[in-house]
């Protein structure tokens, strides 16, 4: 080894020392996906609200579509600064006004996802509070306690220890697998029914609703690309972690939602979940497991909801921060707390919205589980579906201008296939929105909720065009996020790390 290469290695090796490997990235992604929140809360409520049973197949289908989408997504991510935000891809692929429209859709969707979680907390914590303290406070009081905690954590940016999150996530997954095993070993009527896994379920009326719910289960998988510049090998770590996360989520949710139908019998799952709500999985497993296991599972359900709340709170605050840095939102949103480095203004804005929503729901006596948690979740999930679809189109147009950059599978075949599938899913989702909400097809909500995104898109496009005329220097930086400070659109550090010699990489584990 010559002196020259050794000195080059010093820099590369030093920077690679605290970089992330595949398992770490997968853990970060999954802890945002909050598996127990989905299995105990989303899956049971969706059986109850939609009244149809094809959810396990929907998870597998959406998993396959998102895996296909991820091929082009992670390829384009390597060319992106601000890679964690869908609107950045849309701005690059479909033009800056579309990017602003995407940003507005994202703000609506991620806020809805976060605020919706407040509605589930009451249902999750009630049995524990009753059992431990003999109290049964109203749901909004429990929600307000959580809200206050999120408000403080969001601005303080207290280090939630990565290993604590990892332990909680592992425990959640173990509990889910244990419950699945119990359900499958104790099938209703003595025989394991596989009808819920039949592809024929996808041709049942209302399938669009199931597909949106399945997309909701995957939300968070997109955050893997945030770690590009921090990963050991951006060309490998991020793609592998993304596919692994999508596969794990698809398998876990498909098996769990199927196992529930086996335990109740496919014909009774809707009836049971309508009666027991999120208690369903605890009741089913509780018949065969000790009370301690069930108590641990209930605690994990609460921590899982809380982890998801923090995660979506931070996602939303960072979106607002990135837009503030670009000056698409006022500059004050781009400032951070001096002491903690938290995106202060974005965090406070998200917190304020949460308070308003909790107060409105409590004042009007709306149902927290269905009308807040489930509507918030599915409405947000639908928004994320729209973002994924627009991003998938952006991948095609982006690489169409750079044909030499990636092979034809990554730049054309996979993105076109994914886009076609996603457009079909969006069409079905809009067509079946009444089923998704469990309302009569003549209900105004059935059009009002999807129309909210149309409004966001129109205002976003208009704002983008206004910026083009009135503030061209801001317009030029749409989608660049923190990089608006330099105007650079392609990432910096991916290059030296990607070029590092093999021996340097292997030396650092």
């Amino acid at each position, binding site marked *: 080894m010559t002196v020259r290469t050794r000195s080059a290695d*010093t820099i590369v090796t*030093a920077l690679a020392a605290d970089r992330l490997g595949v398992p770490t990235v997968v853990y*970060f992604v999954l802890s945002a996906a909050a598996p127990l929140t989905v299995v105990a809360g989303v899956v049971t409520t969706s059986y109850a609200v939609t009244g149809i049973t094809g959810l396990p197949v929907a998870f597998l289908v959406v998993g396959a579509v998102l895996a296909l989408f991820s091929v082009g997504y992670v390829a384009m991510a390597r060319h992106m600064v601000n890679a964690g935000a869908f609107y950045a891809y849309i701005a690059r692929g479909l033009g800056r006004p579309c990017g602003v429209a995407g940003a507005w859709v994202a703000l609506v969707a991620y806020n809805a996802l976060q605020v919706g979680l407040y509605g589930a907390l009451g249902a999750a914590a009630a049995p524990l509070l009753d059992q431990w303290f003999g109290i049964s406070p109203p749901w909004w009081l429990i929600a307000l306690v959580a809200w206050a905690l999120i408000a403080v954590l969001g601005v303080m940016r207290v280090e939630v220890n990565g290993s604590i999150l990892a332990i909680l996530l592992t425990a959640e997954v173990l509990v889910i697998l244990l419950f699945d095993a119990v359900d499958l070993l104790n099938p209703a009527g003595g025989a394991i029914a596989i009808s819920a896994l039949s592809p024929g379920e996808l041709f049942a009326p209302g399938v669009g609703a199931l597909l949106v719910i399945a997309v909701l289960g995957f939300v968070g998988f997109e955050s893997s690309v945030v770690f590009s510049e921090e990963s050991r090998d951006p060309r490998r770590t991020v793609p592998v972690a993304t596919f692994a996360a999508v596969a794990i989520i698809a398998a876990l949710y498909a098996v769990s939602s199927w196992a529930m139908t086996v335990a109740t019998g496919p014909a009774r799952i809707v009836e049971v979940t309508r009666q027991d709500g999120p208690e369903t999985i605890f009741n089913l497993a509780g018949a065969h497991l000790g009370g301690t296991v069930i108590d641990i599972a209930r605690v994990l359900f609460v921590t899982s909801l809380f982890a998801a709340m923090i995660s979506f709170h931070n996602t939303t605050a960072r979106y607002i921060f990135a837009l503030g840095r670009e000056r698409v939102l006022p500059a004050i949103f781009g400032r*951070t707390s*001096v002491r903690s480095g938290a995106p202060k203004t974005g965090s406070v804005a998200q917190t304020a919205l949460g308070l308003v929503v909790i107060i409105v729901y409590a004042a009007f006596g709306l149902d927290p589980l269905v009308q807040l948690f489930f509507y918030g979740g599915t409405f947000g999930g639908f928004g994320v579906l729209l973002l994924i679809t627009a991003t998938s189109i952006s991948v095609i147009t982006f690489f169409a201008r750079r044909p030499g950059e990636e092979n034809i599978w990554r730049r054309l075949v996979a993105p076109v296939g994914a886009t076609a599938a996603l457009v079909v899913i969006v069409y079905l989702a809009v067509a079946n929105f009444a089923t998704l909400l469990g309302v009569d097809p003549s209900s105004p909500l059935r059009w009002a909720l999807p129309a909210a995104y149309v409004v966001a898109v129109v205002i976003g496009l208009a704002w983008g065009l206004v910026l083009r005329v009135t503030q061209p220097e801001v317009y030029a930086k749409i989608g660049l996020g923190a*990089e608006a400070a330099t105007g*650079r659109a392609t990432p910096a550090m991916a290059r030296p790390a990607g070029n590092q010699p093999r021996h340097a990489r292997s030396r650092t584990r």
Partner: protein
Amino acid sequence: MGLADEFFLIAWDTAGSGAPQLHPRATSLGLAGALLGELTLAQRITVWRAEVRVTDPRPVADALGQSILHEMINAPEHTDVRTWLAYLARNSVEDVAARLINAGLLRRTESRLLWRKSVRYVATNYVKGAWPAVRMEKMLVNGERMTPADMALAALVEATGLLDTILLDRRDRLAARRYLATFMATIPPPLRDLTGHVRAAVGDAVLSYRA
């Protein structure tokens, strides 16, 4: 006193409790930027857009600056400003603190509360510790003419989000931000690009924050 020394004395409450005023990631990136800024002001390196290059290999008097310059000369394949910012940020707090301690300006104390170790840096002379922040406040509020070194310091203070710490009065902040916006148009391009990268790196750290 070097650019990084002054930034350090502003980023840590050296004239008071000795505790950090700014979160660790922004502090270390700000100091890394200040160290590159010193070499830029000494006309040994230059920054153009995303690239940094050694333009004059002659040694500088300061030992820390010299060791950085030496590393940059030996690794000409690394021209990305962000690579160097990330690399220098790893040890920038300790490096600059050591320089200030050697110069007799700073004292390091450690305290332990339960399992958390906290490091404090206290100025040996109260006035010298407080001066950079006071001077910067005065210049920004009064819109005084600045040398390139002062402009670089002000730009780094703004880029890392420290501005609100030295300007406690809300009206002062508005005036200072307006003044900053005007003089950023006149700051030498290498310093403008360098501090722009510090600002972007600090923002990036917010966006890729885990948990």
